[in-house]
């Protein structure tokens, strides 16, 4: 986007590739100068002050923090200043200079963030692809052996099956309950209190939530007092207590409940805002047309927020594909509850096999990417 804007700058004398490369060189030059200068200044100030200040770790830490922020400001101020020196906004070429500077400035300000994000996001992807063709230690080329192993591995198939189960159940349930909660809480006087309560699990970490639900599913031998609420309820009605999270297949659903519990709040908040955005008059028109409250909900309201529902759904879907913490904390993949992310973690840090772990990671990435692209497109459409 910004590339084309530099290319087609209205008063840029020679639009085209030449101008673009000239701008690129200038931008990179200023960026490098700015970063080097800001870092050198920060280091110099730090060492100067360090000789004077007492040798206390806390003081040093605070100093580093302050200097870090100052260096950032210094970079933005300094790089902007440099740009203005190269293209001064005065003189007889003032309009050309302002346009050229405006073409470069976004790159200067975005540059450091883009570079750092690139290092932390793009490099691991490339390295994972490379590692997936190497053996456990990442030193010996094995060709497609990791992929061949994956295709035949029973635990991988179990993880895939469970991931697909999660994929079907959790986004659907969380979006559905979120929509219901949004629709109901909009109409009652204590709706805001109810919303806060439903939203609260969002503030709990997945591991924290798992600990809470571990107590809910807790199992004590028959005859002793059940401290898990689920077994307490079951025994109250005369049933037999169960070790819920060890029941193969069904335990998947008991784990899913945790994520649904967490994500319903998210879905509710977004959908509630969308519901409020529906023009009141379309609802009144439907009332005059004779639609019942239920018909108004699913024939008038839901279709109007369909875009938002899709975004919420896919956002939760992406989250579900990466589900890890809950499974690790609850069962660690035992009793047939393994999922891809946890399986990858197993091979990485327990199996110590970089190749196989990377191969599993790529499978997860391949599943997430298309949904992610669609999700971003849809969200952009909604913003328009």
């Amino acid at each position, binding site marked *: 986007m910004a590339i084309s804007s530099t290319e087609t700058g209205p008063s840029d004398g020679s639009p085209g590739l030449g101008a673009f490369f000239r701008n690129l060189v200038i931008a990179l030059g200023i960026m490098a100068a700015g970063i080097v200068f800001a870092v050198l200044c920060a280091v110099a100030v730090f060492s100067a002050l360090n000789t004077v200040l007492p040798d206390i770790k806390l003081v040093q830490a605070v100093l580093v923090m302050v200097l870090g922020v100052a260096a950032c400001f210094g970079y933005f101020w300094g790089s902007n200043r440099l740009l203005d020196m190269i293209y001064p906004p005065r003189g007889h070429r003032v309009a050309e200079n302002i346009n050229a500077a405006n073409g470069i400035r976004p790159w200067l300000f975005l540059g450091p963030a883009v570079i750092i994000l690139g290092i932390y996001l793009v490099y691991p992807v490339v390295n994972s692809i490379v590692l997936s063709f190497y053996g456990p230690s990442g030193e010996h080329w094995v060709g497609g052996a990791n992929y061949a192993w994956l295709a035949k591995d029973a635990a991988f198939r179990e993880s895939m099956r469970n991931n697909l189960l999660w994929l079907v159940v959790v986004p659907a349930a969380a979006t559905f309950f979120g929509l219901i909660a949004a629709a109901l809480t909009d109409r009652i006087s204590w709706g805001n209190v109810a919303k806060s309560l439903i939203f609260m699990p969002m503030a709990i970490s997945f591991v924290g939530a798992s600990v809470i639900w571990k107590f809910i599913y807790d199992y004590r031998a028959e005859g002793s007092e059940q401290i898990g609420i689920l077994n307490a309820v079951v025994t109250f009605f005369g049933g037999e207590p169960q070790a819920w999270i060890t029941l193969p297949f069904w335990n998947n659903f008991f784990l899913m409940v945790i994520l649904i519990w967490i994500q319903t709040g998210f879905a509710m908040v977004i959908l509630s805002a969308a519901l409020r955005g529906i*023009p009141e*008059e*379309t609802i*009144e*028109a*439907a*009332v*005059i*047309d*004779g*639609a019942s409250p239920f*018909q108004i909900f699913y*024939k*008038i309201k839901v*279709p*109007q927020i*369909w875009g938002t529902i899709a975004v919420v759904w896919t956002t939760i879907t992406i989250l579900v594909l990466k589900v890890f913490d809950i499974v690790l904390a609850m069962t660690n993949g035992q009793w047939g509850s393994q999922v891809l992310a946890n399986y990858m973690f197993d091979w990485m840090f327990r199996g110590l096999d970089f190749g196989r772990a990377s191969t599993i990671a790529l499978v997860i990435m391949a599943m997430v990417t298309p949904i992610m692209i669609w999700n971003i497109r849809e969200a952009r459409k909604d913003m328009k």
Partner: protein
Amino acid sequence: MTALDLKNIQKSYGATKVIHGIDLKIEDGEFIVFVGPSGCGKSTLLRMIAGLENISGGDMFIGGERVNDIPPSQRGIAMVFQSYALYPHMTVYDNMAFGMKIAKAPKDEIDKRVHAAAEILQLTPYLGRLPKALSGGQRQRVAIGRAIVRNPKVFLFDEPLSNLDAALRVATRIEIAKLKSSMPETTMIYVTHDQVEAMTLADRIVVLSSGHIEQVGAPIDLYEKPANLFVARFIGSPAMNIQPARVERTGDNTLISLGGRKTTVPIPSPEPLSGTRCHFGVRPEDLRIADKDDFLFEGDVHFVERLGEVTNVYLHVKDVDDAIVVKLAGVQKYAKGDRLRITAAPEKMHLFSEEGRSFLHI
């Protein structure tokens, strides 16, 4: 037959009363326009007729049936909203068919009615489109079509033209007038703050102000014989000139003193009003330049608006606070500072009591 009968209709939000007991009878096939300034309660009254607002007091009858507790869909009404309120996710066809589909009408019946309405409104080529692919005027026609398909006893329009640009507003106004004449049996109630729409469309106009009816009558009656100062000022543009005066002699003709001069107005007045203060009114378009010594006002021009077809001249008259507006035909060459004498035909003059009631309605 009476299509709509409002008996002492009231509306209050908590302790705040917004509609103070409206009594109104609307006959079958009438085109009624509710007009009034913002916040006068005209839209609230319309929404009460539609059933979108609860009725706090009084009784409402549609076609002889008390509808206070009947839901909107069963009142035999259809409403056209200011923002059109089309269902954005449905095609033009589905928008118009929605009500009948909800009512589980047979498919071929729905098809027939939708196509008939589309034919009237020239929407047939657009039946498969979504509202977002239509222009503002077409959307408005779909909203009207949706109302026609419901085949209502009473049509309700809530400022249907205010979202259209000026040229389209005039065209759509004429469309609505044509639509009404093609459906002489149907009663229409139309809310607007635009007096041109009110004057051109209405059989009868209901002028509302702060929750009261000020006057009900045919457009020309309201223009010629406003019942009170509010209606006199509200109908007509520029607004009627109102000046304080004093009743000198009552009788079949009333003698008043106005700015030190005495004028006879051919309006009868009862004896008790003798010697009281009153308001003298005359419309800008009824004033003309006096060619004799007999004049109503003498003043200095301090502002001139030339609109081509007419010229509005604002006069400063001695001892009078507000400027007197004179609307003269064609382009006039008066300039600031010119001294003018103006007068009006006696039968075009209006008299109002001190409380603002017209002498004709006392």
